[in-house]
C-alpha cells in the first residue's frame, strides 16, 4: 500500500515545473554565460589593473601625480559636476511633463529624448562644432564678446550634456507613469502648493529611481569619449578629460600612465556598479511595496 501511494508523488517530482530545463541544458547555458563574461569583461578589466601596476606601485602613483593628468582628472570632475545637475533638472522636468500631463507633441518629445542614444557620439560632437565653429554664425558672434565655446570647458559641458541627457529622464518616465497623479492630487486637495507637492510628495516617491538615473548619467558623463573628443581640441593640461588623456598617453607609448588613469575610470565603473546593485535591491523593495496596494 505504502509503495503504491508513493508512486504518483515520485512521478510528479520528475515532471517538475514546466519552465525548468533539463540539468544538462541548464549547466550548458550557465557555462556559456560565465565563459563569455570571463573572456569579454573580466579579462580586459584585469588587464587594465595588471598593466597599470606593471612597474610597481611607485610608478603608478607618479603617473597619477603628473600635472597634465591631474588637470584631466580635475576637468572631468568639473564637466560632470556641471552636466549631471543640469541633466538632473532637465530629466525631472521632462519626465514630469511626459508622465503627468497630456499635451500635443508628447510622443515627439519622448522620441527626442532618446535621440542621443541613437546618434553616434562623434555626430553629437560635430553638431556643436557646426553650431559654434569659426565658420558658423554663433561662433564668431560669441567670440567677439570674448566667449569661447569650442575647445574650452563650455563646449565640453555642452557635448556631455547632449550625450547624457536621456539617462535621468528615461529612468523616471516609466516610474512616474506607473505612480500616476493620485498622490499629487491628494496633496493638492489638502492645500499643498505645487512646489510643496513636488518637494514632499513627488520627489520622495521617485528618489530611488532618480538616484539610479543620476548614477548612470554620471558614469557616462565621466567616461564619454567620442563627442568630447570632437569639441575638445586636445589642449594638454587644459581641455583634456580623463578618457582623452588615456588616449594621448597611450599613443605616446606611456603605457603605465595610460593604464593608471584607466584604472581610475574602471574603478568609477565598479563603484557605479556596486551602488547600482545596492540601489536596485532597495529600490525594487520600494516598488514592490507600492504595488502591494
Amino acid at each position, binding site marked *: 500500500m505504502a509503495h503504491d501511494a508513493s508512486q504518483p508523488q515520485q512521478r510528479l517530482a520528475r515532471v517538475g515545473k514546466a519552465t525548468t530545463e533539463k540539468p544538462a541544458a541548464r549547466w550548458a547555458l550557465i557555462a556559456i554565460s560565465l565563459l563569455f563574461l570571463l573572456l569579454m569583461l573580466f579579462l580586459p578589466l584585469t588587464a587594465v589593473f595588471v598593466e597599470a601596476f606593471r612597474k610597481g606601485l611607485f610608478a603608478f602613483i607618479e603617473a597619477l601625480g603628473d600635472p597634465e593628468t591631474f588637470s584631466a582628472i580635475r576637468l572631468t570632475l568639473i564637466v560632470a559636476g556641471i552636466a549631471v545637475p543640469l541633466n538632473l533638472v532637465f530629466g525631472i522636468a521632462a519626465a514630469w511633463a511626459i508622465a503627468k500631463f497630456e499635451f500635443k507633441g508628447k510622443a515627439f518629445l519622448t522620441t527626442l529624448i532618446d535621440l542621443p542614444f541613437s546618434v553616434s557620439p562623434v555626430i553629437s560632437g560635430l553638431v556643436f562644432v557646426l553650431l559654434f565653429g569659426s565658420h558658423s554664425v554663433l561662433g564668431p558672434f560669441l567670440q567677439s564678446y570674448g566667449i569661447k565655446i569650442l575647445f574650452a570647458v563650455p563646449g565640453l559641458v555642452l557635448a556631455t550634456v547632449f550625450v547624457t541627457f536621456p539617462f535621468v529622464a528615461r529612468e523616471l518616465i516609466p516610474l512616474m507613469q506607473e505612480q500616476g497623479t*493620485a*498622490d499629487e*492630487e*491628494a*496633496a*493638492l*486637495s*489638502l*492645500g*499643498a*502648493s505645487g512646489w*510643496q507637492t513636488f518637494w*514632499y*510628495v513627488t520627489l*520622495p*516617491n521617485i528618489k530611488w529611481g532618480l538616484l539610479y538615473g543620476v548614477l548612470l548619467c554620471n558614469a557616462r558623463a565621466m567616461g564619454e569619449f567620442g563627442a568630447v573628443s570632437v569639441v575638445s581640441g586636445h589642449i594638454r593640461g587644459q581641455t583634456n578629460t580623463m578618457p582623452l588623456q588615456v588616449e594621448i598617453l597611450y599613443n605616446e607609448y606611456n603605457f603605465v600612465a595610460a593604464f593608471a588613469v584607466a584604472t581610475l575610470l574602471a574603478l568609477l565603473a565598479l563603484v557605479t556598479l556596486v551602488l547600482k546593485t545596492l540601489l536596485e535591491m532597495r529600490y525594487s523593495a520600494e516598488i514592490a*511595496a*507600492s504595488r*502591494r*496596494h
Partner: protein
Amino acid sequence: MEVRVEKLRKEFERFPALHHVSLDIRSGELIALLGPSGSGKTTLLRLISGLEAPTEGKIFFGEQDASYKSVQERNIGFVFQHYALFRHMTVLENVSFGLKIRPAKRRPAAAEIKKRALELLELVQLSGLEKRYPAQLSGGQRQRVALARAMAVEPNVLLLDEPFGALDAQVRKDLRKWLREIHDQTGHTTVFVTHDQEEALELADRIVVMSQGRIEQVGTPDEVYDNPNSPFVFGFIGQSNCLKVRISNHEVWFEDRPIGVPAPGEREGEALLYFRPHDIQILDGCGGCMAGVVASSRRVAGTRHVEVDVGSGHNPVEIELPPEKAAGIDRSRIAFRPTKWKIFRP
C-alpha cells in the same frame, strides 16, 4: 456647508462627460452619486473638488461662487478609491500633512497638530498604528487613514470617490456602517461616488442617480426605490422586471388578455410595465393574471428567485418566493400578478 451646482457641463477633448447638471447639496447631509461607469458621477465629484475645471456652469460653496477657485482654496477633503496615501510617511505624518504644510500664520503649533491627528486616528479607530507605514496596513485600515487625513483640514465638504471600491465584500460592509457612524458624529457635508446601489441605499440620506452625464433622479433611498421616475432608475436600483404590454380600456393587457392591473388615466397603446420580483402575489386560479412555466429557480439568502417563462418574444420574469412555497415547482405552471408596478412609455 451647502454646495450648489448650477448647469454644470464638462467636455473632455470634445467628448461630453456631463450635460448641464444642477444639484443642491444640503449642509451636513450624506449624499450618494450613483450610476454605472461612464455616467459622469466621478466627473461631477472632481468638478466640485476643483481637481477638474468645468467647461461651463457654476459651483457655489455656501453663498460664495467657487467656480474659479483652485482646489487648495476650496478647502475640501478628498478620499480616493486607491487611498493615495503618501507611502514614505507614517500614518501620523499622513494625517498631519494638510496642517503641516499650511503657511505659518494659519498653521497650528506642532503639538496642537499632533494632538489633532491623534484624535482623528482615535475617531477612525486606528489608535496605536500611528507609527506604521501605509504598506504595513490592510486596505480597510488604509482607507480609514485616508479619511482621517481628509478630515484633518476641517474641510467644507468631504468628497469620496468610490471609497470602498477596492475592498472585499465583508470589509466594505463594516466600513459602510462605520462611515455612517462617523458622519453622524462629525456632521461633515459628505458626497460619495458609488456604482453599488446597495451601498447607496444603505448609507445615503439622499441618492443622486446618474446616467450618461445626466441626473436621472434625486431623492431619499425610499423615494428612488419605491418611486423611480424613469425606466433607467427602475432598472438600475434594485431588481426589476420589464414587460412589453398594451394599455386598453384603462387596463394593462399582456399579449391577448388583461392581467388584472388597472391603469386609470393612462393613454391607450404600447407601454412598458415595470415591477420588482418581490412585489407580486401568487394566484391559484387565473382570472386576469400573468401565467408561465417555471424555467429555473435558485436560492438567494432567505428567498427563492424563480424565473418564469411567460411566452416567446418576452424576457423571462423573475419573481421572489418564500422557500417553502417554491419547493418542487420546477417546470410547473404558475399564475401571479404584480401588486406594485409602474408604467412607462417606450
